[in-house]
């Protein structure tokens, strides 16, 4: 560490960072530095002590820490990979220097040939969704509560209401119940749940926890500590319907109201950002708008499964390694990939025809829950891929491959469409 030149500096040692490091190593990178701000590598998985991770990636059901350990085992003890924990990156610069700080090493400046951004995401807060009422103790994001319960050994409260049916909220409903707390209700402003189906079943239905769809909170009560909330039904525009209010007794409100990619460093760099993913715009190699700076995982777009995070990070790790070894061709045709119809977001947002013969994997999310949809990828008028899916939901990412032979030579802009079948 110090004045050395790294092939790759990876910002963030969660599953994305660790998977990217391993893939970069596999692809010939000789000096890799991973900078992690928490006391251990592994990211948010460390507090996700439930199972259900790794079925795709490791072909085995693991807990969060178990998955993190697998990722870590692949990179530890490799002389080419250095991992610094308790290290906060303060800035990433256009010249690919990184300024970071830690108690052990103080303020440091390191230089990379390439950078991979894997900072993950953070939770949307109460302020961001404008919940009226007081601001007492007892309002937590579900993730903050999860850390306290699972890693630090404390309860955020005993009588719980959860706002939002995102996966962390559902997992916490079960977790709090198992800790002996009473989960009074889960409220969801949408007319459908925003979590994975398996989490709805295993975390709510199995424990008889009431779920109120099309409901939100119209007041938080209690000046020092939460002592209740008022809930109300919402109309089609998600506005509370007067007269439908009812009070729920609780001492704690957990918020599971969405995740936001953590892109302060990306913005500091001036990377082109996508307004809907809230992450950097990337090509199929996960290279951002600044050459040599890659991004992968939840910092690019919020994933539903960590398995897909690892998969995406491996892509970034591979191509960052090739870039560092000057094996990635430059100045090639650049084709836009546009999300249309019911596709809300699609990553990558553009494809460079660098290596003809690459399979292009597309990750997308739809706008609303649908049954029997047709997914079509076109380049101009040529159909590259079309298939029917039995269901599509906003909460579950859809991943498809455009085979190399189909992708090849299609230099007109691509569109990715999902439509309900008539």
């Amino acid at each position, binding site marked *: 560490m110090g004045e050395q030149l790294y092939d790759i500096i990876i910002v963030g040692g969660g599953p994305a960072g660790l998977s990217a490091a391993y893939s970069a190593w596999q692809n010939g990178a000789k000096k890799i530095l991973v900078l992690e*701000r928490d006391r251990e590598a592994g990211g948010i998985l460390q507090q996700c002590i439930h199972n259900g991770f790794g079925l795709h990636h490791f072909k085995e059901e693991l807990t969060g820490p178990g998955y993190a350990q697998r990722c870590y085992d692949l990179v530890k003890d490799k002389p080419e990979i250095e991992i610094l924990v*308790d290290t*906060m990156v*303060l800035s990433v610069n256009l010249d690919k220097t990184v300024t970071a*700080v*830690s*108690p*052990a*090493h*103080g*303020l440091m400046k390191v230089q990379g040939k390439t950078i991979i951004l894997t900072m993950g995401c*953070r*939770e949307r*807060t*109460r*302020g*961001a969704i*404008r919940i*009226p*009422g*007081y*601001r*007492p*103790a*007892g309002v*937590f*994001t579900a*993730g*903050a509560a999860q*850390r*306290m*319960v699972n890693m*630090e*050994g*404390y*309860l*955020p*409260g*005993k*009588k719980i209401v959860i706002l939002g049916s995102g996966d962390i909220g559902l997992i916490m409903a079960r977790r709090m119940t198992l*800790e*002996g*707390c*009473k989960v009074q209700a889960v409220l969801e402003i949408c007319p459908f749940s925003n979590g994975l189906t398996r989490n709805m079943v295993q975390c709510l239905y199995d424990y008889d926890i009431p779920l109120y769809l099309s409901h939100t909170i*119209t*007041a*938080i009560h209690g*000046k*020092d*500590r939460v002592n209740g909330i008022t809930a109300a039904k919402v109309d089609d525009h998600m506005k*509370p319907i007067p007269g439908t209010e009812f009070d729920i007794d609780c001492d704690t409100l957990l918020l599971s109201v969405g995740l936001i990619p953590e892109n*302060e460093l990306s*913005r500091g760099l001036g990377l082109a950002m996508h307004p809907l993913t809230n992450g950097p715009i990337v090509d199929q190699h996960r290279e951002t708008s600044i050459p040599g700076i890659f991004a992968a995982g939840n910092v690019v777009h919020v994933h539903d499964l960590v398995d897909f995070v690892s998969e995406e990070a491996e892509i970034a790790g591979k191509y960052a390694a090739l870039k560092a070894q000057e094996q990635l061709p430059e100045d090639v045709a650049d084709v836009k990939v546009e999300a249309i119809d019911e596709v809300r977001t699609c990553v990558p947002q553009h494809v460079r025809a660098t290596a003809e013969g690459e399979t292009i994997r597309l990750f997308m999310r739809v706008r609303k829950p649908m049954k029997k949809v047709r997914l079509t990828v076109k380049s101009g008028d040529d159909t590259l891929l079309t298939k029917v899916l039995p269901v599509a939901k906003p909460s579950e990412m859809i991943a498809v491959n455009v085979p190399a032979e189909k992708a090849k030579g299609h230099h007109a802009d691509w569109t990715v469409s999902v439509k309900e079948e008539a």
Partner: protein
Amino acid sequence: MTKQADVVVIGGGITGTAILHELAKYNLRAVLVEQEPELAAGTTKANSAILHAGFDAPTGSMKARMNAAGNAMYHELKDELDLDIRWSGSYVAALDDEQMDVLKELLERGNANGVPGLKIVSGDEMRKEEPNVSKDIKGALWAPTAGICWPFGLALAFAENAVINGAEVIRECQVTGITVEDGAVKAVETDKGTIETKYVINAAGVHVDEISRLAGDDTFKIHPRRGEYILFDKTAQKDLVYSPIFPTPTKMGKGILVCATTHGNVFVGPNAQDMPDEEKDDTAVTIPGMDDILDKARRLVPNIPVGATITEFAGVRAVSSTGDFILGPSEKTKGLIQAAGIQSPGLTSAPAIAKYLVDGIVAETGATAKTDYKKGRPAQPCFRMMAEADQKALIAKDPRYGRVICRCETITEGEIVDAIHRPVGARTVDGVKRRTRAGMGRCQGGFCGPRVTQILSRELNIPVTEVRKEMRNSYMFYNKESGGKA
């Protein structure tokens, strides 16, 4: 506990702390009592954070006198106490000819109040300095001496200086009675015991009339008026406005302004909701209130970054039945000194109010100035603002300055530990937040809240379950053993 004091200040907001700071310059035993675990926990924490130039209040009123004097004093105090103030100037914007006429009145009143440098500028002149304001603005009153500040920081700085000069601050101390004998104050009764004193300075904010009644003076009443605010992330539109931009005032008050904090967060507010007299602590925010604020703010600055909202909050202003500040000795009870009805421009006026009231006590008692009075306060390290060489040196001395706890605002463990052990140090999570900014960023303590809780537990040597968010009973976490058995 029975204590002796010369002066007891009731209330640890900006007014009370400024008074304590002034008292500490004299050979007087001064004690401040505050009912919450933290200072600046009432109106001082939820206001527009503006140091007004002083053209609003009617000429000759206490508000006008104290405002102009207080503003001038802060220009001196900024360096002396290392206060977080930006002398930004301010605008009052007019949207039509009628409002332009009001600006002329304000200009004349300001001149009469002794406010320096006021001038009326055209809309285009204003837009040269503030390119994001509405094209509908026809003109504005520019007040170069106005500023924006970090209001809790001001109150804490006053208290820190007072304490290093021998004044005492007792927190979590609720006044339960005031003993009056032969028409004169004898003692303040609290839930922590009795403090014998000849003088009580009543700076209890919205509760100042209740304290006054305890001492036998019911000559005025305080009416609570709530104001809501919305605060935005500093990465969003950080150059949206440089100076506070007010609408043309109406009978209801100064109106909803658009402003940026000293740290670059844009905020909008406040509205003015008259509350029932018994709802003095109602700081809840409402949907209609927030919609109203945004609607009005957009008339001044159309491009308000609503999507980057990080929090909403409300404060309650103490509106007195006289409409003016009520300052000075009570006519009913000897030794009771009122600092009542301190609504806007109370923050600006605080040092002037302090001097006015303390001068009175000094004249009456003949108290002498301390010969060993220490100016300033202990330096407060701020890692993110330091040059790299200084950062390196600080970490070399104390590695905890190399551990970033608040990721949004880049606040280190070293700064948090310092905040806890400073004079009148932080006791709660919000106390740490107001001294360091840990938790003030876009994640609003989501990441750092649990860590700050653990640092407080360690440094104060109390269980995690006894760490509070801010208010007396705002406990954050429970033990697992007892959890769920209720």
